């Protein structure tokens, strides 16, 4: 540190210092950083276990300096369930995209939420299949053009985009649901706060915590990073509004005790 300078911002130590494979402007790298900042602030690097999905973030374990498991496509919620039930005092999260969580893995997602599995979903919703080259996702917006909906998503053929945060907030055993984004510094801070809250609720054993990130995909959306931010505001936010959808009730005692039989 040079004399006269004050360190106000640095890479969290749990974020591996390597070049990421993500496209320019993609939120994945930002969300990875937020996650590891929270891990560092809560001092839980030695207790946190993550589950990678199949999707663009399939290599998240290359960047996050914590123990991780790679799940089959869509099965992250079942894998996270297995980990958390074995090790109830650890902090477990699944990191999943929209194809993974809301299409092929919808059953695993819904049932993990309904059981109130005490881990955190980090759900990256960019309305498109990024890794496989821009196909339609279960969250692709009405009329949105993708490689498999070249004339726009047609509800009479493809159904309507799934509002996952709204859906899972209906479940009794789900403790906390918030939809966030990273399009502005203010929203990025809110996103970090939401992740931190989710982890804290998990540590109290309050049940399932679910953070949906209304995210972008400049490559899949065929636009510049800057244009993608505008598209987010104009099209994604009206259909996927940001904010808290569910918070733990004050009366809720939590189910940590039920899950810690092995100790």
């Amino acid at each position: 540190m040079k004399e006269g300078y004050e360190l106000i911002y640095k890479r969290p130590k749990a974020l591996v210092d390597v070049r990421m494979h993500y496209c320019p402007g993609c939120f994945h790298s930002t969300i990875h950083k937020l996650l590891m900042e929270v891990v560092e602030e809560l001092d839980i690097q030695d207790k946190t276990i993550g589950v990678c999905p199949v999707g663009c973030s399939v290599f998240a374990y290359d960047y996050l300096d914590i123990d991780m498991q790679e799940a089959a496509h869509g099965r992250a919620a079942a894998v996270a369930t297995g980990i958390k039930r074995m090790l109830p005092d650890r902090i477990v999260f699944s990191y999943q995209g929209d194809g993974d969580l809301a299409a092929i893995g919808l059953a695993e997602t819904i049932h993990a939420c309904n059981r109130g599995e005490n881990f955190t979903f980090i759900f990256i919703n960019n309305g498109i299949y990024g890794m496989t080259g821009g196909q339609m996702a279960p969250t692709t917006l009405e009329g949105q053009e993708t490689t498999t909906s070249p004339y726009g998503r047609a509800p009479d053929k493809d159904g309507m985009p799934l509002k996952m945060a709204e859906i899972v907030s209906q479940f009794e055993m789900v403790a906390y649901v918030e939809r966030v984004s990273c399009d502005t510094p203010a929203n990025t801070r809110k996103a970090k706060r939401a992740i931190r809250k989710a982890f804290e609720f998990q540590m109290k054993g309050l049940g399932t915590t679910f953070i949906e990130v209304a995210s972008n995909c400049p490559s899949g959306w065929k636009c510049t990073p800057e244009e993608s931010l505008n598209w987010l505001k104009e099209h994604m936010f009206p259909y996927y509004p940001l904010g808290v959808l569910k918070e733990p009730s004050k009366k809720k005692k939590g189910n940590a005790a039920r899950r810690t039989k092995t100790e």
Partner: protein
Amino acid sequence: MGEIRFMKGNEALAEAAIRAGLQGYFGYPITPQSEVIEYLAREEPKHNYVLIQAESELAAVNMLYGSAGAGGRVMTTTSSPGFTLMQEGISYIACTELPCVLVNVVRGGPGLGTIQPSQGDYFQAVKGGGHGDYNTPVLGPNSVQEMIDHVYLAFELADKYLTPVVILSDGAIGQMMEKVTLPEPIPYKPNKPWATTGKTADRERNILTSLFIQSEAMEKRNLRLQEKYRKIKENEVRYEEYQIEDAEIIVTAYGLCSRISKKAVELGREAGIKMGLFRPISLWPFPSKQIEEIASGDQVKFFISIEMNAGQMVEDVRLAVCGKKPVHFYGRQGGIVPTPQEVFNSIKEHLK
């Protein structure tokens, strides 16, 4: 001396798993093996294992993946259609090299099939079953006692070789009751430094994955798996012989069929026909070398494989016999269990 009880196959298996130090069970009800999860659910308050009735076999096998990766001694049980759903997970578990036990109490297929006993899943179990080059050790119990013994053995093999291990039972052995001796519970102290239990300051992070995007790395993992399978083939072949020494006719059969065939061999001996039974216990690795040696015997006239399917293990017998002697087959399908007399008659056909 262990505790003697009169038990149903599925319940004996469940009790054995508890005594072997079970830490996690994930399953979905399906006939004819639902007694396993029911038994474990009843016993749960007395023990320290986690039990989840999953939303599907697909979820169950992935819970198995997660919990095995977290260092648990874990098991799932299912029957044929459920075993098909689990193939995805077994492929991932085999490649990621996680120890766990899967039990298939086989029923008749294909499709929804029947709930009656069958051996129609032999191929699926011993040839890998899912995508990619892999095998899993497969044990074929033929009694309620072996449902117990094989659980202990399966957990041991899983930990020793870091692999999923399959117990290939069937609806009859799962449902029937026999006198058994329950072994003493074993204290299970896992030593799994590779498990994802949280990255402590004294080690690098543990990553459990079956993804190796670079071809060279993927081939390296494949070669490592094949080297492991070579060791398993060398060390873990198990079989049983009955009246083989002077036998002119070698009956091969596993699981329930081996008991029926044993009786058929006795009928043959009573009729003055020199018959013997060769019973593979480890279905993978298959006792090929032993069968090859038997086939070299001058007095041996032919082999006949007795199965409750359209002829699956017979292919492995033929590969082992390697043209030295004729290999015949007799089987029943659709959940029908052949009688000893029927098996004996089918063998006599080849003596004409």
